């Protein structure tokens, strides 16, 4: 989407007077950035600094103790590995299975009714709250002895992200030129070869966008992670929530662990901002 050049000069953005605008933007900027600043400096504070009055605005001297602590005492490495495996495997499964299904819906040979039915099913499924099946899933998973197992979370996260991925990929497959498909059909490629070698490579931008949305969503996922893990499969989000106890907060480790959970997502967003926005707006407006 190209921003139209005239907007730059236009009075469009000046429907508030300039001073008001500057004040509003400054307030918003501060309220976005200050909490993040606070989180970061909190992770470098010493124990007594958390209870200082007035609050310590800049830790001096700072300490790395919290990061050492979460590494040694709170299983940072294992949590990170779990989060990474859950998000990574979910992304691979979702993108692969989702693109296959979407390809079949768009370019495959299915009865029209089936296509329509499946598309509306996915739309509805995308919106229903995950919590409604929490209890039965909890039972099924514990009966299957899959409790505290990463695989259970991968399956659940895959099912949550599939509907959106399919809907988005539908759009990308529809935009891919069909003439190439037809040509390769005449050359004797079957449906799988056309999916794998011809059409899907043309939707690379789409795959990246949906992959990223899925990765971030499952990296951040909490509800099922907290229900289905006990100890060894805990991802970072569950470890963070564990710092909140009846006796109070473990301020330092909590801040440090939150920094660790945020950082990879920030890096991902920074490097692929464009794909992220396009994927997000397509998800809202096309699906």
């Amino acid at each position, binding site marked *: 989407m190209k921003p*139209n050049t005239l*907007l730059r000069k*236009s009075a*469009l*953005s000046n*429907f*508030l007077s300039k001073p008001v605008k500057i004040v*509003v*933007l400054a307030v918003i900027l501060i309220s*976005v*950035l200050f*909490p*993040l600043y*606070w*989180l970061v400096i909190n992770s470098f504070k010493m124990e007594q600094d958390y209870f*200082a009055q007035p609050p310590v605005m800049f830790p001096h001297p700072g300490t790395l103790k919290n990061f050492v602590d979460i590494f040694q005492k709170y299983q940072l490495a294992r949590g990170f590995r779990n989060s990474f495996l859950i998000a990574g495997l979910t992304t691979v*499964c979702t993108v692969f*299975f989702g693109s*296959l299904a979407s390809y*079949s819906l768009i*370019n*495959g040979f*299915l009865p*029209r009714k089936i296509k329509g039915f499946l598309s509306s099913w996915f739309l*509805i499924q995308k*919106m*229903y*709250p995950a*919590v*409604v*099946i*929490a*209890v*039965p899933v*909890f*039972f*099924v998973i514990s009966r299957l002895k899959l409790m505290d197992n990463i695989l259970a979370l991968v399956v659940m996260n895959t*099912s949550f992200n*599939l509907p959106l991925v399919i809907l988005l990929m539908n759009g990308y497959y529809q935009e891919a030129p069909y003439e190439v498909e037809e040509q390769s059909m005449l050359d004797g490629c079957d449906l799988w070869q056309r*999916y794998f070698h011809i059409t899907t490579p043309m939707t690379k931008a789409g795959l990246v966008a949906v992959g990223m949305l899925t990765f971030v969503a499952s990296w*951040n996922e*909490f509800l099922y992670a*907290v229900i289905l893990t006990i100890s060894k499969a805990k991802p970072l*989000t569950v470890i*963070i929530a564990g710092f*909140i106890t009846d006796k109070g*907060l473990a*301020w330092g480790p909590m*801040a440090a662990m*939150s920094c660790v*959970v945020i950082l990879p997502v*920030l890096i991902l967003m920074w490097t692929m*901002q464009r794909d*992220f*926005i396009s994927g*997000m*707006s397509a998800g*809202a*407006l*096309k699906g």
Partner: protein
Amino acid sequence: MISRHVRETKKDRALSWVFLLPVVVILAVAAFIPLGYGLVLSFYKYKLNIPGMKPEFIGFGNYITMFKDELFIHSLTNNIVFALLSVGSEVLVGVIVAMMLSDDTKLSRLMTTIFMVPMIIAPVAAGTLWRMMLDRTFGVVNFLISLLNMAPVAWLANEKVAIYTIIFVDFWQFMPYVAILVLSSVKSIPESFLDAARVDGASSLKLFYKVVLPFITPVIIIVAMLRFIDAFKVFDTVFVMTQGGPGSATEMLPTYIYKQGIKFFQVGYSSATAIVFIIAMSVIAFAFNKLRSYQLRRLG
């Protein structure tokens, strides 16, 4: 949906079904079977905290209990208040911010990038972050307002305040989401529209009401409805900030269902609330889809 095929072979037709298979299996295993199981459980009296208790069929008993259960009604009202106020404020401010960022200067683009941060960080992290800032005694927010000679507020421990705090954190996370989606719609307004209005000598405010607002209204409606549905899924921030408390002041439907089922082991009852919840959400989602496809057609 347009079907675009030329000539089909038997093999391709078979493969079309095979391609759908993994998705159908996963969704059946992870969504449909649990849902069916939940439906069955909802007709039983089944409490796991009583050892050796056999599930007992009680028909609609759980459903009847539910509508007499004050805590359930309270969670529902809380959730509706939360949804209306958070989505309302996010849309109102989001549109204004989108307009301010629409000039496409370097500053605006930088702001847009910074804006993305709250919405992509884990809600759990956002919740703990604000929980630290809003701590009654040691939080920085109460310190800052004390500089303005205001008394400290128990943001999360006061029954009257807590839900607005949760609404604020949701606003902090998702107002930018609304702003960015609306912004991309503002940027797609055809120049001819704006030119025509400018030739007529319309003021900026008039330009906004007469040209911009009508153009972006379908997007605003879609985004508002998406956020509204998401507001009924709120769990992570409530869980880490208040756990539904103080008392039941911030209890929402997802936290209520979670507590009943996973914490208190009221399996049958919790399933019944979940079923009512999903029926209500399906009705909303269905109405929403109708409205959305209508709005999308208007968008072209």
